[in-house]
């Protein structure tokens, strides 16, 4: 049995039945990482010794007939923007090269409380800014389905670690599509929860009104298991919502009979790769076959979403990244004559090109004389984009759409053309602007055997509905059994 290929659900069962031990499971995953990370570049650091110690503790509890927590013995990896006390947190940047987290993020605490074993920290685009994981200061993260292609970003490492069985599951963050896009490119399940569903405390911020932490998993059930573990109110995050958080697996197999699925017509226009269009259309027919009612809906402000996103996200980023000044932590430029030069050189040397571009654009749209025309305007358009969803949800329970217009592109193909890179996010950014939950589920392969993702978009705090739809679709196909040719 190849233990590294187990899902959370399978591992939970086998551990409790005594079929496998936690040490065996963790060893299998560590071995897999050693074998594949050199060419995939998904892990930035691993927690080898501690992970095995924790696994031995779990096995002791099992031997003594003690109680296990939900995620006891399950190896989980975290994107390197999520703090794990005592481990590095680089955010994929040189400016945090030697930074060691002094505390756990809330999601880390909750995973630990659930018994999960933190196996390592994952590569990502620098400060979560990117759609391909080519913007990391620590090297490209490659797609396991074709290592000449991008993993997607910014949570490339999170998606790859799961797709390549280098972890049972991982956590990523999604600001404009950064969980859903790499999940689609790598053929795994990725969830962006409703804004405010999961605490952002201890998560390195990119855009505070858009960021959300979410699970990357091999199956929809695993996604529900992980969300259950990490979701819920946190007094340390004033944007986290005080709303009860259920067991998301409870109604997952209820099916879609009677549910109304909205299909936004603006999402099916030019630029959508043929294979992708065919796979999505096939999914629509399947869901119809399972009893869902297909509803044609319109989202008239779709074409403004990316522009709106890039004004708001960069503005918020310019503010959030102002703290990287070399004073209290991280890289500090040496041999500087005064404090002003210290700031300028620390940031010039520490930040990569894409980060600098976004800080510049963000600073510009907030600056005197331009604030009204750009930032304020974008905030108003954001209200219109959310309005589209509110209107559409009057006639449907959830929506179905592609995740990306194309499958994974080649490394280097778009890096010199930022705008083309940004357009990969055309189907994902509106969801962040509106704060909605969305799930990416594998729905097929293109002619080059590259995965295609199906996006299910839910109403606020209705993750259960998109889990139901995703689970129904997943179990009636066998994409979840596919593994990349490693």
């Amino acid at each position, binding site marked *: 049995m190849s233990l590294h290929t187990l899902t959370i659900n399978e591992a939970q069962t086998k551990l409790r039945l005594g079929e496998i031990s936690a040490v065996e499971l963790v060893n299998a995953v560590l071995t897999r990482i050693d074998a594949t990370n050199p060419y995939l570049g998904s892990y930035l650091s691993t927690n080898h010794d501690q992970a095995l110690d924790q696994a031995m503790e779990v096995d002791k509890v099992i031997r003594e007939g003690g109680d296990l927590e939900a995620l006891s013995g399950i190896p989980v990896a975290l994107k390197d923007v999520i703090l794990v006390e005592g481990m590095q947190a680089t955010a994929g940047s040189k400016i945090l090269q030697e930074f060691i987290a*002094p505390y756990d993020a809330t999601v880390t605490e909750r995973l630990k409380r659930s018994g999960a074993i933190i196996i390592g920290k994952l590569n990502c685009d620098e400060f979560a800014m990117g759609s391909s994981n080519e913007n990391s200061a620590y090297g490209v993260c490659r797609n396991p389905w074709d290592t000449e292609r991008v993993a997607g970003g910014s949570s490339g490492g999170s998606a790859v670690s799961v797709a390549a069985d280098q972890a049972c599951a991982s956590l990523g963050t999604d600001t404009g599509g950064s969980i859903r896009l790499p999940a689609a490119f790598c053929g795994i399940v990725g969830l962006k929860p409703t804004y405010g569903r999961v605490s952002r405390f201890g998560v390195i911020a990119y855009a505070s*009104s858009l960021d959300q932490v979410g699970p990357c998993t091999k199956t929809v059930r695993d996604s529900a298991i992980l969300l259950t573990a990490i979701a819920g109110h946190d007094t340390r995050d004033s944007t986290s919502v005080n709303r009860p958080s259920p067991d998301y697996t409870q109604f997952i197999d209820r099916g879609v009979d009677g549910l109304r699925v909205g299909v936004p017509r603006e999402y099916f226009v030019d630029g959508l790769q043929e294979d992708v269009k065919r796979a999505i259309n096939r999914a629509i027919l399947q869901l119809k076959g399972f009893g869902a009612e297909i509803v044609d809906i319109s989202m008239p402000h779709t074409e403004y979403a990316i522009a709106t996103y890039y004004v708001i996200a960069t503005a918020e980023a310019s503010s959030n990244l102002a703290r990287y000044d070399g004073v209290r932590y991280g890289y500090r430029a040496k041999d500087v004559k005064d*404090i002003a030069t210290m700031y300028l050189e620390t940031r010039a040397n520490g930040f990569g090109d894409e980060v600098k571009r976004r800080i510049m654009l963000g600073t510009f749209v907030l600056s005197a004389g331009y604030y009204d025309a750009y930032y304020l305007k974008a905030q108003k358009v954001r209200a219109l984009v959310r309005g589209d969803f509110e209107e559409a949800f009057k006639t449907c329970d959830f929506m179905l759409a592609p995740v990306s217009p194309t499958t994974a592109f080649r490394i280097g193909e778009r890096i010199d053309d*930022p705008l083309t890179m940004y357009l990969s996010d055309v189907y994902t950014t509106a969801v962040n602007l509106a704060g909605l939950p969305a799930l990416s589920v594998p729905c097929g392969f293109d002619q080059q055997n590259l995965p295609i993702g199906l996006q299910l978009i839910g109403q606020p705090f209705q993750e259960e509905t998109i889990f139901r739809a995703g689970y129904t679709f997943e179990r009636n196909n066998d994409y979840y059994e596919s593994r990349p040719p490693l």
Partner: protein
Amino acid sequence: MRITSDEILHVAALARLSLSDEEVTDVSKHFETMLKYVDKLNGLDTEGVDAMSHPIDLPTALREDEVTTSRSESHIRKIMDNAPNTRQDFFRVPKIVE
């Protein structure tokens, strides 16, 4: 819209970024492309639309103004260990005031 070199340097100063000549050119091109793209927002009528700063309508989370125990010595050590230059529990930087 054309952004001049001077405006770019002004924005860079605001952002505490020093840019090389090449970077100024790169940013200038990037601004041109992005602002042209973003300018399509100006075609939209947003009369009477309230600016949306947040996806959820939450009241500001307040707490009681009470003194709690500060962090432990070991926690302070972890924070100071990340600092590039310190003296006791202060962060040292180049002189600010002449």
